[in-house]
């Protein structure tokens, strides 16, 4: 079987990271194809159930990326996101979820190259971790 290709879902804010990824494109910087981007107005919009949903859908890793602290288009959204993430992560830890599969990043509209590098590094890291099957297993248990 060919090398495992992880499936990465990225939740990005419209003003910084989405634009940053556009810049990656306009500057033709190549990066791994594994990532699928979902555009939101602000990382503050991210309800962390979305992350669980992503994993339930078979994602092997998730990227959450928004504006740098202080640069939020909505002044404070990214702070709220970060605060909630800190709590949420400890919950995930508690239930034995490998939080290395969730990657938090700050990519501004000017950081095209950084976006490519973030994606690549996450893809490699998750490739190391291998496919995420715990949920499927659990689901199956539920079925049987």
């Amino acid at each position, binding site marked *: 079987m060919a090398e495992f290709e992880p499936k990465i879902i990225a939740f990005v804010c419209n003003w910084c990271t989405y634009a940053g990824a556009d810049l*990656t494109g306009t500057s033709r910087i*190549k990066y791994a194809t594994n990532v699928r981007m*979902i555009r939101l107005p602000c990382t*503050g919009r991210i309800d962390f159930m979305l992350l669980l*949903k992503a994993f339930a*859908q078979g994602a092997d890793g998730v990227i959450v990326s928004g504006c740098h602290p202080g640069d939020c288009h909505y002044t*404070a959204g990214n702070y709220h996101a970060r605060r909630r993430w800190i709590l949420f992560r400890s919950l995930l830890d508690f239930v034995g979820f490998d939080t290395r599969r969730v990657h938090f990043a700050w990519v501004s509209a000017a950081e095209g190259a950084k976006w490519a590098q973030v994606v690549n590094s996450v893809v490699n890291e998750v490739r190391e971790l291998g496919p995420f099957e715990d949920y499927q297993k659990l689901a199956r248990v539920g079925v049987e």
Partner: protein
Amino acid sequence: MSRIGVFICHCGENIAATVDPVKVAETMSRVPGVVHAVDYKYMCSDPGQNLIIEAIKEKGLTGVVVAACSPRMHEPTFRKVCAESGLNPFLCEMANIREHCSWVHEKSDITTDKAIDLVRVIVEKVKRNAPLYDIKVPVTKTALVIGGGIAGIQASLDIANAGHKVILVERDPSIGGHMIQLSETFPTLDCSQCIMTPRMVEVAQHPNITLYTYSEVEELDGFIGNFKVKIRKKARSVDENLCTGCGVCMQKCPRKKIPSEYEAGMGMRTAIYIPFAQAVPNKPVIDKDNCLYYLKGKCKICEKNCPAEAIRFDQEDEIIEADVGAIVCATGFDVLGTDSFPEYGYGKYKDVITGLQFERLASASGPTLGEIRRPSDGKEPETIVFIACAGSRDPAKGIEYCSKICCMYTAKHAMLYKHKIHHGKAYVCYMDIRAGGKMYEEFVRRAIEEDGVNYIRGRVSRVYEQDGKLIVKGVDTLLGSQPVEIEADMVVLATAAVANTGAEDLAKKLRVSYDAYNFLAEAHPKLRPVETNTAGIFLAGACQAPKDIPEAVAQASGAASKVSALFSGDELSREPVIAVVNRCPPPVFSTCEGCFICEQACPYQAIEREEIKTRDGKLIKVVAKVNEGICQGCGTCVAVCRAKAIDLQGFSNEQVYAEVMAL
């Protein structure tokens, strides 16, 4: 069942080179709900757009997905296309298969597969899009201008001349600000009062301007186009309508030895006073802290002598409420207290004065009628030393930043001194000369070359008095840092410009942000210098940072034009991407529990409280309500809502989850 049309763009080779559009279109056509899927070389071209228009008409599409470049590029284009053909523009979305796919990956099936995923995601979203309509906010076409200095005056006049109403609020008894205190202005040396007073009169007489002096902004509510302001009109103890400004009261007032604010302490005033001859309005106020009647309960001499019987000791503060659509903040600056400079002996030695005090000495309307005389004994100073950066660029005792105006006004001071006392010696102890500006450098050179002002590079360490002389211990860093001692008759400190007192409180009242030095913060340092990050509130003049007159005036006109633009229509219309609280009737079933976590999360204080009552007015519960004028649509409230009672139009939970499920 939704009928989605999918349009795949080749963007010439830009997409087609690495992604196979045909395959994408073909795959999409098999997605349930997709009734139409085509690819074309240039979707944004007229023929491309026509494909969409026709499809909408023929197939009766309920949603359109254009898979092409970034929505940041062409979303408006395609939404317009939909609108023209009768489809609600918000039912049209773009899948970004160029910047996020074709340009960043090599040609391969994987790349095409990714493109397919990206399109499918948007298709699933659009299936759940609801028609949205731009939000219209009415605009009250009255501007509030806070601060009656040159910036506030300029802004008021510009807005008023554009045909809009203006309310100008000034804290002091008269408008005029710092500029009216100045003697002559650099680099042209024209008399400040001569150019200022006509503007002040114009303000007073302008039909569109309502002037409230001796007043302050008490409270502000509302949002862009719809602010509600409370203004406290402090009691003057004088009936302005009766008072003729004859000035008898001031002649009779027994309290004559009160340091005048206008004269920066170089002259005296009475307890009932008009700050200066050209004051607008030319009506006195009673300074309650110094008036014998208010202090001791007896005197009332002014009342006895007032021919117009205008004195009102029992007058009380008045609260004026007004609706305004925009606000210009022009509260100006203050000069740093020099008590932080014991080594320069300000306050200890009479003849060590501040730049502002020198302005009064040099001003024809000043206490010495424009003659430079030292405060201690009224003698003409034979030798005068100007110390630059007294407080500026001094993190230890003053402020870290450069006050910007001092280099120029110090050069002006030295020049004025030389013009008035030809034989006198003028020294300027400076660190750097910062004379960036039209005709500024030339001005400084003129002071040095033509008027023979002696510039010494080096900070002064200490000033002390000996035998009636002020010994200035300086240094010349251009002479190998040799200590230099000057026996001066008078020393002038170029005191730093700092944020005005109360700037912080005002900023909090207006909900605009301010920097570490309490200067009000602009929305963007380069591209939005007159806006604040609160929509509808603009900045003018030195309340934002130290500025000289031309800069302050320019920014004031800038702010005025922003306001005029805002007032050009009867309504503001804005994108409907905002949060809404679920309110399915009957109200009892509103899923909002009223926990108001959203209230704390909202960066814009856009969450309001709404009481749900029965018909007979019994309170059922309090729920959240989003003020659509204020909400900017970040969606933070949606994420924190436990009951999932708030949703974000255009990025609803349903839509976003559907996107994830599509992967």
